[in-house]
């Protein structure tokens, strides 16, 4: 069973299961897509609103729309990865299948690899659909944008958010009733300090220090440099390496923490309780 082929099949089990769940809950997917699109549009319209409020001579509305749109789309991509990674455990708690899944002869790294593959693919498609819809709404000027660089920044950022997601997934493992809500708190803090809708330097000094350790800060800055300023891909390295480094630390750390949490849950009998 522990052959590579068996583990690949086991990894695919999570991909296929998630696809089936999306198919069966398709109405929820539509609702979520509408909500996410409306949210992105609402935030982006603030750019045009500022032009009106601040006076056209002081504010470049189109630039501001693109600035906010990049923020909202990058955040949508990263947070969708985060939420699907929490579903390592959360969805199993919800359905009551956690014992069956954790009893199967599947290495935890296989489990997480399957979930990661699905999370990143789903997030790319989901964000891509929102991008197309929002692009139709605004007259975006992407002539000088470095699209390859933007995609590179998103790819680099996805690793670190997989790591954060794995760490956060221990919340529903250890706290069946309130674990999911605790994970929301974590992602809200990352949103606050990462400069999603504003430059990080408008934050108070303490929050600016926290921004340094948030991978989203570098992903957002790098993506904006690539898409707004057209920075060449080679010059994006100062933004790429911190996110890669964080991913390199966060994924193994997440795996280790998850293993410890799983062991604790097995010692204290927390797998049995369904939230």
């Amino acid at each position, binding site marked *: 069973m522990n052959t590579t082929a068996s583990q690949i099949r086991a990894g695919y089990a999570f991909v296929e299961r998630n696809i089936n769940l999306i198919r069966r809950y398709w109405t929820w997917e539509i609702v979520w897509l509408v909500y996410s699109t409306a949210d992105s549009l609402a935030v982006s319209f603030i750019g045009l609103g500022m032009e009106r409020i601040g006076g056209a001579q002081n504010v470049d509305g189109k630039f501001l729309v693109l600035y906010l749109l990049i923020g909202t789309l990058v955040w949508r991509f990263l947070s969708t990865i985060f939420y699907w990674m929490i579903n390592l455990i959360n969805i199993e708690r919800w*359905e009551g*299948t956690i014992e*069956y899944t954790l009893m199967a002869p599947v290495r935890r790294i296989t489990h997480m690899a399957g979930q990661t593959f699905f999370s990143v693919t789903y997030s790319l498609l989901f964000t891509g659909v929102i991008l197309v819809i929002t692009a139709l709404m605004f007259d975006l000027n992407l002539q000088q944008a470095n699209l390859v660089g933007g995609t590179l920044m998103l790819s680099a950022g996805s690793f670190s958010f997989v790591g954060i997601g794995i760490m956060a997934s221990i919340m529903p493992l250890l706290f069946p009733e309130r674990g999911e809500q605790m994970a929301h708190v974590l992602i809200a803090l990352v949103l606050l300090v990462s400069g999603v809708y504003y430059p990080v330097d408008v934050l108070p000094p303490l929050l600016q220090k926290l921004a340094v350790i948030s991978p989203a800060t570098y992903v957002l800055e790098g993506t904006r440099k690539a898409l707004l300023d057209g920075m060449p891909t080679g010059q994006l390295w100062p933004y790429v390496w911190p996110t890669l480094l964080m991913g390199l630390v966060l994924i193994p750390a997440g795996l280790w923490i998850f293993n410890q949490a799983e062991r604790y849950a097995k010692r*204290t009998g927390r797998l049995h309780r369904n939230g």
Partner: protein
Amino acid sequence: MTAAVVVHDIYKKFGKPGGPWWKQMLKGRVANGKNAHSNGNGNPGQNGSGEHAAQNGNKPMVVAIDHVSFIVDEGEIFGVLGPNGGGKSTLIRLISTLLLPDQGNITVFGHDVERQSMKVREIINRVSVEASFFKKLSPMENLMYGARLYGLSGPETHKKLVEILNRLGLEKRSIYNPMEEMSRGMQQKVAIARALISRPRLLLLDEPTTGLDPRSKREVQTLVRELNQEQGTTILLTTHDMGEAEALCHRIAIMDKGKVVALDTPENLCRLVPSKNGTPTTLEDVFLELTGRSLASEDEKVEA
């Protein structure tokens, strides 16, 4: 005969006897004022429901398995009989690597459940009393998920699953409808099919026929017997049902308050208690004699 499962001096408790000093102080104040049941020294006492418990402030310590040892032989159907809270499901969870013991060790076909958990998982499967599934997914989708977790490939497994489900009496159309549209009995049959697909050497059945109608119950029992006789699958079965235990099991362990109070063949267990009023001794008579209470709780009797 080879030992399939060796349970050696297993002890498992839930809840903590202490906690940080400041918590104990705070809880101690509350307990002194309110809790008349606390013995105050952290030693296990007994609560009203018959569980072993030590009241430490507000959190009881429950001893679920109390130094249990036994051996299940390969090819045997081994029954574990006991009331709710007797430790049966905890024992199943310990064997299936879902719980870690506080003391003692368990081996499954020579593999230690704690140190070689992956090896153990490859050769076991389990049907629990609550049939847990992705409710919006169909039986086939749920079973394919299960099959892939055990490293089985697609098309061949699909065909095999249809055969198993048909054999268990599931109509073809219901195989592709959401699980939530099925009755509890049907869901339990799907749970059994899920356990069979990986062809386990050891099958752990935790009250598998609870909630099934008499006909379904008989079908499941026939299947269990066939699995054991034709494929040599070792089966560890927990149940409340005396008739089921007597009909299926080669040997039975009676558990109460986390302890094994008797272990033998059904016939020998019945010989432990002399017959009364000329009627043959039943397993229930034995249980009453050994534990001083009936198998089903009073609430369950009222429901029945």
